[in-house]
């Protein structure tokens, strides 16, 4: 079998999207930790356009952008599928995966800003959760149904990273009264063995992200 490698960074939810997919499908891979403050020349070579992780390598050929990587993994290793079989259901899954990917950025905007800009990001984040709660498929443990799928993976950031961001910036968005289905999903998602065994330590993340935010707002 051709070599599989993942260049990632431990604090990144985008990196974990790929780890989860590989673990769920039982694909052996080599993990390379990238120091984002000192990016390797290999990373810059593999992802010249964005210079970001994750970068996925299969037989030495790089694939960039976590959602593009997930589609690639799904096609090359169709076992334990992350997308449904039915074309319309696949379209619905892709719609929500895109939604999670696009709107999920608002939590990072909230993390990186203050004042009016942060308030705007917070509103966007809340609206994202509201839409998810409103349209959550009835009676399903995961968005993918009985097992974790692409939408659940795309939403991983909300499950494990948003609570840390909330604590750092001092907001409370994940209100169980406002988002009962979503909170239930978060619990189920993080209890799933493969996810549980593949999550960064929340305390370490809190310390790391807190430091990052302090650096951002150091006066010049």
């Amino acid at each position, binding site marked *: 079998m051709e070599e599989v490698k993942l260049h990632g960074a431990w604090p990144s939810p985008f990196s974990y999207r790929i780890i989860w997919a590989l673990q769920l499908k039982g694909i052996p891979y080599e993990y390379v930790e990238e120091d984002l403050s000192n990016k390797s020349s290999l990373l810059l070579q593999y992802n010249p*356009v964005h210079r970001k992780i994750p970068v996925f390598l299969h037989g030495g050929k790089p*694939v960039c952008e976590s959602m593009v990587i997930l589609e*690639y993994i799904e096609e*090359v290793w169709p076992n334990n599928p992350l997308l449904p079989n039915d074309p*319309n259901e696949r379209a619905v899954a892709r719609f929500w995966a895109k939604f999670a990917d696009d709107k999920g950025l608002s939590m990072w905007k909230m993390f990186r800003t203050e004042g009016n800009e942060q308030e705007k990001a917070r509103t966007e984040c809340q609206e994202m959760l509201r839409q998810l709660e409103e349209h959550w498929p009835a009676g399903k443990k995961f968005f993918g149904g009985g097992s974790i799928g692409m939408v659940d993976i795309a939403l991983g950031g909300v499950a494990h990273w948003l609570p840390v961001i909330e604590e750092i910036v001092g907001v409370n968005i994940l209100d169980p009264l406002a988002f009962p289905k979503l909170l239930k999903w978060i619990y189920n998602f993080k209890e799933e063995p493969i996810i549980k065994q593949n999550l960064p330590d929340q305390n370490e993340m809190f310390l790391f992200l807190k430091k990052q935010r302090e650096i951002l707002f150091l006066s010049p």
Partner: protein
Amino acid sequence: MAEVKVLGAWPSPFGYRVIWALKHKGVKFEYIEEEDHLNKKSKLRLQSNPVHQKVPVFIHDGKPVAESTVILEYIEETWPQNPLLPQDPYERAMARFWIKLGEDKATTLFFAFIRAVGEDHEKATNEWKELLQILEKHGLGKKFFGGEEIGMADLALGSVVCWLEIFEEIVGVKMIEAVSFPRLHQWIQNFKQEPLIKDNIPDRQKLVSFFKHRREAIVAAAKAS
């Protein structure tokens, strides 16, 4: 035969992505114009796309699909003839990379060019230049992104770039020139000359007029506030 419908708005490039894909594959469909789409939202639009309330919406056998790039993937899977994506998974990943870049950057710019004023507009112009540089340096080299034949990445990017070229004319900023972006310039010419595109694109003057009015209204409103 199952019914295929497309709900779109004639000035919007995103609807054309869907129209081009269907025509490329010879799929018969009914086109429904969302009249006065900036000011009114039809019941069909709201029902079919409750989350974003936008067009285009694609309806197959009564079931709606929203988001043009999601619609393109659905069309590709449902009607595999005249494929818009390569067979090889790695090549498919490359195509999807460019489609995503188009969505993340080009689509944002599309709206910024119409709506932004002052500093924000200048920022958009700089980002437009950066995107062109990326496409020129890393993306292009063959006749199309798809190779010798037009593909999904061409439809996704070509639509927005065609419209942005028109915006260049309206805001008086000419960037896509053969001398500065030879490969990009050639690609967009190839794209516009392809019969599929040429025969299924709104009249350029009509588009210029529509967006010019839109831009003038926005700038006037910004000045008044």
